[in-house]
């Protein structure tokens, strides 16, 4: 690895001051960044460690019943958190799906999003749960939906000097549920060939609202609004789930690479969407 300097920021203002320096880059868990820097794929003159900043380490329910999740909170803290497991089980599950135990001790969902891999498992889950990103920068704080954060493989909306501080998740609605499924040749320690997240809210036995987002089938994690809208007001019957899954297939814009062909990924988009909807539905009925 090329030489770089290192500074551990203790506060948000200190981090922003350090990130304003030329060649500065934030370091959270490092499980992607250090690998990429060793391979010469990303460069930095200064790594600003953001793991000791209180705002980036928050993991708590807010008074309104939503979740405040700091960008640098490691996966293990998320899936060990009793309230997250109970109220946002899809989030706990995906935190336990990324890498293996020693990765989950370090890797964060903020890092997963900023790395901006199309295959990032946690991003579709954050999208269907309605999470918003809190971004701090020289010009102040801005908030935007997670689905607007990634702009291409490895590319995000973050401007120079900006830092992802954390996520705000709304409280789960009554009779709602969410789930994420992915296809991998191996059960553990693998990267999604494709993935699908679904969230469903039921009202009087019908679907009031649904959201569907896909992984690894487009240059960015992909919200498919038309697939969710197709279910609004419908009974949770198989024909409607299949119709939504077909819309997810139509929205997928996959490539062929070493993990799978574009054709296989389109097929997976439909299958995984239907199964994720079924899993979300089962949770919504229990909630």
């Amino acid at each position: 690895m090329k030489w770089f300097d290192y500074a551990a920021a203790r506060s948000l203002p200190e981090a922003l001051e350090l990130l304003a320096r030329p060649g500065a880059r934030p370091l959270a868990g490092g499980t992607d960044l250090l690998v990429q820097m060793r391979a010469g794929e990303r460069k930095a003159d200064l790594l600003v460690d953001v793991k000791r900043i209180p705002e980036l380490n928050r993991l708590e329910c807010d008074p309104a019943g939503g979740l405040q999740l700091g960008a640098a909170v490691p996966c293990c803290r998320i899936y060990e958190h009793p309230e997250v497991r109970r109220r946002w089980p899809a989030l706990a599950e995906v935190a336990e799906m990324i890498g293996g135990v020693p990765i989950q001790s370090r890797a964060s969902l903020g890092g997963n999003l900023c790395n901006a891999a199309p295959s990032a498992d946690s991003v579709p889950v954050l999208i269907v749960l309605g999470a918003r990103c809190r971004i701090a920068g020289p010009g102040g704080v801005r908030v935007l939906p997670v689905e607007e954060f990634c702009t291409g493989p490895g590319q995000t909306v973050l401007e120079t000097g900006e830092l992802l501080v954390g996520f705000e998740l709304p409280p789960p609605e009554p009779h709602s549920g969410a789930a994420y499924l992915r296809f991998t040749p191996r059960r553990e320690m693998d990267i999604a060939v494709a993935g699908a997240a679904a969230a469903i809210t039921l009202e009087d036995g019908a679907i009031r609202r649904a959201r569907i987002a896909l992984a690894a089938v487009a240059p960015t994690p992909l919200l498919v609004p038309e697939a969710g809208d197709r279910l609004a007001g419908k009974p949770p019957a198989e024909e409607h789930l299949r119709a939504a899954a077909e819309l997810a297939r139509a929205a997928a814009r996959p490539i062929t690479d070493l993990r799978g062909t574009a054709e296989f990924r389109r097929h997976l988009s439909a299958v995984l969407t239907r199964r994720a909807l079924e899993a979300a539905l089962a949770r919504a009925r229990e909630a």
Partner: protein
Amino acid sequence: MTGEKVRVRMKVNRQSVELLCEPRQSLLECLRDILGLTGAKEGCNDGNCGACAVILDGRLVNSCLVLAVEAEGSEIITIEGLARGAELDPIQRAFLEQGAVQCGFCTPGLILATKALLDRTPDPTEGEIRRRLANHLCRCTGYDKVVRAVRQAAAERREVRA
């Protein structure tokens, strides 16, 4: 860039140490090359194989993916810190007795992963063991003997506690 080395203080195997390292040096490099603790191995150097795993502030980490400077103020347990004098940790003994060690390259990581697992989950199912050790590659044993060793160690630890 300053090009200056950084002084890092940490506790390694219950002993306070202070070392001077480059910010780009991994914890693995510093453990092996500066402190002479060669139990943690460099396999893939990118977080896939688990041969470099150590316990950092109670959590299992790949020491190849941690900068030594990030460990400032931390407590680290390596495989060298597991035995008490000549007495092996029950996990180490279970690995020996079950023949879960062949070439030995993955063993320090697997034993620390077992400790991290059993410290939080004293009675794991076979499925949990296989899933929680999935970040550790072993090319010799086929894993069955490793799973047996983990189950033996878990049973012994529960007995001691009871």
